């Protein structure tokens, strides 16, 4: 009998300690970074457990809403429709801006093109321009390789260029598949997280410099330009949490702001936020 009571207390105790777990869910862009941060954090505070999972920004926010996550990683800002849902449930949201990401546009290294105007890019991605002939002296059709429309990267490119993607754009399963396709397809153009091309090999692909009407061509690999905010396709990475949970998630958020946290962000292929 005593033994059973002991088991029960253990069970209840383990439930309690379970409350010390911070559940982080969301963006696939951020998931690798969040895992490294969580591991390093756990080395220092082993009283708090952090579980990290991906699935996409939308899933993270939905999980935060229905209570299965404490922090929602999101590579886009929350949209109005989602905000309404939080309001309906009377949940106050707080935002933590913890790193920056840049999106690189890649083409095959056989394509004689080094930089591109955002206007031309918008025309290409929306399907208004279907052939490279207007940009270079080659008459080849353009193949677009993008992410699936559940990806934060997809949403971001769509919003910042203010376009609807061409229905002919292929939707690939991830960054790796996009790069592989670009390597094989000299008429392709695709977009991936800059962190992904920074670490990987760039054999067979070329990262385009981007320029706008009033700025010079900037490469996403130029850290200083990103820090000064002058690359067109850079985006903040957010972590959303319920305001009422602030005390619970604070230790982890604080860790992300330390020198160690910042250096992890940098070495993972992202850009720390300049304050």
């Amino acid at each position, binding site marked *: 009998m005593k033994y059973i009571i002991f088991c029960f207390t253990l069970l209840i105790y383990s439930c309690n300690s379970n409350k010390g777990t911070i559940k982080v869910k969301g963006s696939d862009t951020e998931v690798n970074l969040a895992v490294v941060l969580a591991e390093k954090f756990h080395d220092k505070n082993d009283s708090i457990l952090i579980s990290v999972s991906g699935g996409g920004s939308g899933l993270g926010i939905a999980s935060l809403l229905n209570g299965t996550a404490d922090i929602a990683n999101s590579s886009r800002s929350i949209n109005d429709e989602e905000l309404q849902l939080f309001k309906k449930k009377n949940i106050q949201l707080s935002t933590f801006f913890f790193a920056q990401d840049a999106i690189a546009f890649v083409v095959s290294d056989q394509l004689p093109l080094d930089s591109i105007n955002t206007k031309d890019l918008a025309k290409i991605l929306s399907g208004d321009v279907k052939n490279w002939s207007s940009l270079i002296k080659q008459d080849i059709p353009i193949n677009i390789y993008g992410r699936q429309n559940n990806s934060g990267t997809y949403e971001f490119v769509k919003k910042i260029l203010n376009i609807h993607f061409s*229905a002919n754009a292929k939707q690939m*399963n991830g960054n790796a598949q996009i790069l592989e396709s670009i390597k094989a397809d000299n008429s392709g153009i695709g977009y991936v997280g800059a962190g992904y091309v920074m670490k990987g090999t760039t054999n067979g692909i070329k990262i385009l410099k981007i320029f706008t009407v009033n700025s010079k061509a900037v490469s996403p690999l130029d850290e200083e330009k990103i820090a000064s905010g002058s690359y067109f396709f850079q985006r903040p990475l957010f972590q959303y949490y319920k305001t009422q949970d602030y005390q619970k998630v604070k230790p982890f958020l604080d860790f992300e702001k330390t020198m160690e946290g910042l250096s992890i962000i940098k070495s993972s292929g992202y850009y720390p936020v300049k304050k």
Partner: protein
Amino acid sequence: MNANKRAITDWIFKQGFKTAGVVTIALLGGIFFMLLYNSISFFIKRSPLDFFTGSNWDPETNYSILPLIVSTAFVAIGSMVIAVPLGILTAAYISEFAPKKLQIILKPIIEMLAAIPSVAIGFLGIVLLGPVISVLFGIQNGLNALNGSILLSVMALPTIITISEDAINAVPKSHREASLALGANKWETLFKVTIPAAVPGLIAAVMLGLGRALGETMTVLMATGNAAAIPKNFLDSVRTITATIAIEMGEVPYQTTHYFALFAIASILFLITLVINLLGEYFANRLRKFHQ
């Protein structure tokens, strides 16, 4: 006493089986009503006319199922064009011509095809079939309807072969004997007597294979490129209903138009598969009658 005990056991088992049956039916009914309820929520927000006639699936602005249905049809019909002749001829070979020893080896091998996980087949589509298609047809990328069709035909083959073989086996021996006695050779007997006699069973095989192809998700998601335009030919990328649901369901904000739209296309897929499976069942039943 003993008889009483047996009556009680009998009653308990009867109730047990009854509950199992009712639970299954209730579950199916529940799924059906959930689909229906959410679909209705969608059609309250958007007109069904746009849904069925528009030409663009672009969440938040345009919800039209047409490109998805055309894509699904391309992949499913394409896979049947490949799998049906291959499957029926294989079945005919196994049941009519193969020596007993070979039969014993071939049947389990074919059934093993069904055990390959769809992710593995999809992966083959990306790394093996895709590059081959792009070289063969001189196109830039091999992730298209043809790729999906070939992979799905591989996945539908076990179903088609197994059921066709049963159908051909079920043709009474007297038919073949009569044909041979009249002087027809083996091939004439197969093509003019045995296969025509087995047609209801073969249709059932095709329908069930088609049902398999329509519902397959992972393989087509990986291998068809997922471009939501209405495809013009088999070398265009396509995006099936199943892939659309799989891609978007994880991300969609709950209880929004987009969320309901996914239920609406799921209901349509459900209806299509239901009709095809019912047709398959109907022909399979005719086969059973014929068997008696």
